[in-house]
């Protein structure tokens, strides 16, 4: 079971990374306009 010594911290670190990424996206206002984000993804005027 020695494998747990590094697998568990890795699992927790991955989870925390996900949490941090979510909190960052929340802070940068990515959840303020959910409907808009859905349709903006389909706009292709920035691809030239």
């Amino acid at each position: 079971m020695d494998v747990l010594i590094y697998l568990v911290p890795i699992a927790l670190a991955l989870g925390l990374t996900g949490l941090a990424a979510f909190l960052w996206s929340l802070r940068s206002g990515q959840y303020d306009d959910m409907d808009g984000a859905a349709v903006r993804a389909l706009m292709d005027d920035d691809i030239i």
Partner: protein
Amino acid sequence: MSETLDLSMFVTRTPAGAAHMDLAVEGVGCASCIRKIESGLKQVRGVAQARLNFTDRRLAVDWNDSALSAGDIILELERIGYRAQPFRPQSAEADEARMGRWLLKCLAVAGFAAMNIMLMSVSVWSGHVSDMTQETRDLFHWLSALIALPAAAYAGQPFFRSAIRTILGGHVNMDVPISIGVTLALALSLYETATHAQHAYFDSAIMLLFFLLCGRYLDHAMRRKTRAFAGNLAALKAEVAHRFEDDNELATVPVSALQPGDRLLVRPGERVPADGVVVSGASEIDESLVTGETLQRPIYAGEAIYAGSRNFHGALVMRVTAVAAGSLLDEVQRLLDRAVTAKSNIVQLADRAASRYAPVVHVTAAMSVAGWLIAGASLHQAIVTGIAVLIITCPCALALAIPAVQVVASGAMFRCGLILNSGDAIERLAEADTVVFDKTGTLTLPEPQVDNAADIPPDMLERAARLALSSHHPLARAVAAVARQRLPYDGATEETGRGVRALVDCAEARLGSPAFCGSETAPGAAADGASTLMFAWGGQFWPLVIRQKLRPDAIEAARALKSLGLEIHILSGDRPSAVAPVAAELGIASWHGGLKPADKIALLEEMKRARRRVLMVGDGLNDAPALAAAHVSLSPITAADIAQAQADGVFLGERIAPVVSAVGIARRARALMMQNLWLAVIYNVVAVPVAIAGYATPLIAAAAMSGSSILVTLNALRARKRSSSEGASWMS
């Protein structure tokens, strides 16, 4: 014209020094509008940033105000094809947005913790049947504790705070058993971990928080969406007032910028923008939005006038005042205060359920501790069983049962054109067995209409309507509304208080009082509140009867409400002679006219004593106390502000249909709420004996809790059903 709209109160400064303004935009329907508006604005020189929020239809613009004024931006948007009005985000809305972000953060933390603890828990559970050593299990329990305790301390705050608040207030709500359950589960698990025991309930406690936060966030998001929509409607009304500045020059300012003491000019045909006292001038005003009375009232200097009245003939100078003692507004305010206190006695279904549920659960837990002790179990074992009972009964399903339905049902009502102020209005709406309508502006359309349009040849009507476009008179405005071509005639002259004339197709056309048109027949104002304008052209006379017409679907709505088993009454401030024909047309037997605000309340009290649950639908200033006193209340969007603030919901458009669909949706929603509560009870009846018997392992607790939560949520989704077909086309 030198008089320009002063928008400076809406403009704020960004840290970079640019001007910033938020606008509510009308007519944003599809994704391409985003690009049209944003790229259209960015092409304008001086605009630094334009971003449209598609969810709440609001546009944020940053620009360099040395090159561009706020008014230019609105004009530019109009050129692109959208009507926009600036608004000041209200502090309540900012608080709600902050609250929403906080809930989402709590949800994220709880979700992260629940996933990672479950990772440990599943290993432990499978370890029970394989070869996991006790040391490894303890390590996993300690790791779970390490994640769970800080996560619960953070993510549980919405519940802990609300529980403490209600306990201090001497009540019990659903958050009390939740907080007790979560805290005890964590404490027990910590103790069990420290004593190397087999079971720990960290996963249950955190999962419970996660499910409940999901429900709470959805509830909050729905409320915020409807609130933002209502805010946009208010902004797009774009009410302005003409204010005398210090140098006696006239400036046009948004109504929200008015202060007591301001002197205003109210021109003929305009609405009075604020409550106040007439300083000079004399006129006639239509106070139908204030008192329900449809006949005009002469007004002179020194008299009080109220926001929403329409000025007819003469220009008035008024002073905005705060509430003056003895005025109608003062009386309304007093009645309001009393009604609001009385209403706080209504207990919500959820709190009623909680106040019955919490004692039962806590007594059951205590009894199972006592029972096990009597049966000879150790104190430790008895307490473990008692807490397991608390965990398994922790009202996960119960706390989701009602909010989940509220979210879905208020979404369905929103699609029908009804904006609810509070989720608990749904259950009160479902209980209503009596509807009380105000007449003026509620059963009838708020603006007067031409009643006999069908009797007049279409080309004549069109001429009259186009001529009316050149008049400020409120009655002429009703005629102008039927114009197909909104093209005023050249050279039209208005004689104030008499009429308007112009040369139309080689003959003089006149629209106005019968005397002005040279007609001998002078019907004047009819007894039922109708007024007659005369239209003369080429020696022919056509009387135009103008009155407040019934809303287009009033008759069907009255019939539909009756078929839903509701008793209908009309309580109007208008003269009985004006109420009678409306009541007769709608087939409503019980009606009263000429009522003062206090009379309306007295009649509502009488109904209340007869154990009726009253749905009040009204729009006037005089209805506000009755709206607050009724069991549940709705207002049309055209209602006076004070009435709208008291109503539980606002309906949009010209039709009453949203009221009817709302009652239907609310009843279905309440049935689902009851079903959900029963589902939660059945779940407890099955699960509690298992817990009392001591078989509630963490695995069983987790499965039972998530199972029941998902079940009630799925059941709540049924409130959506059929609402799409009921959805009116008001959104188009």
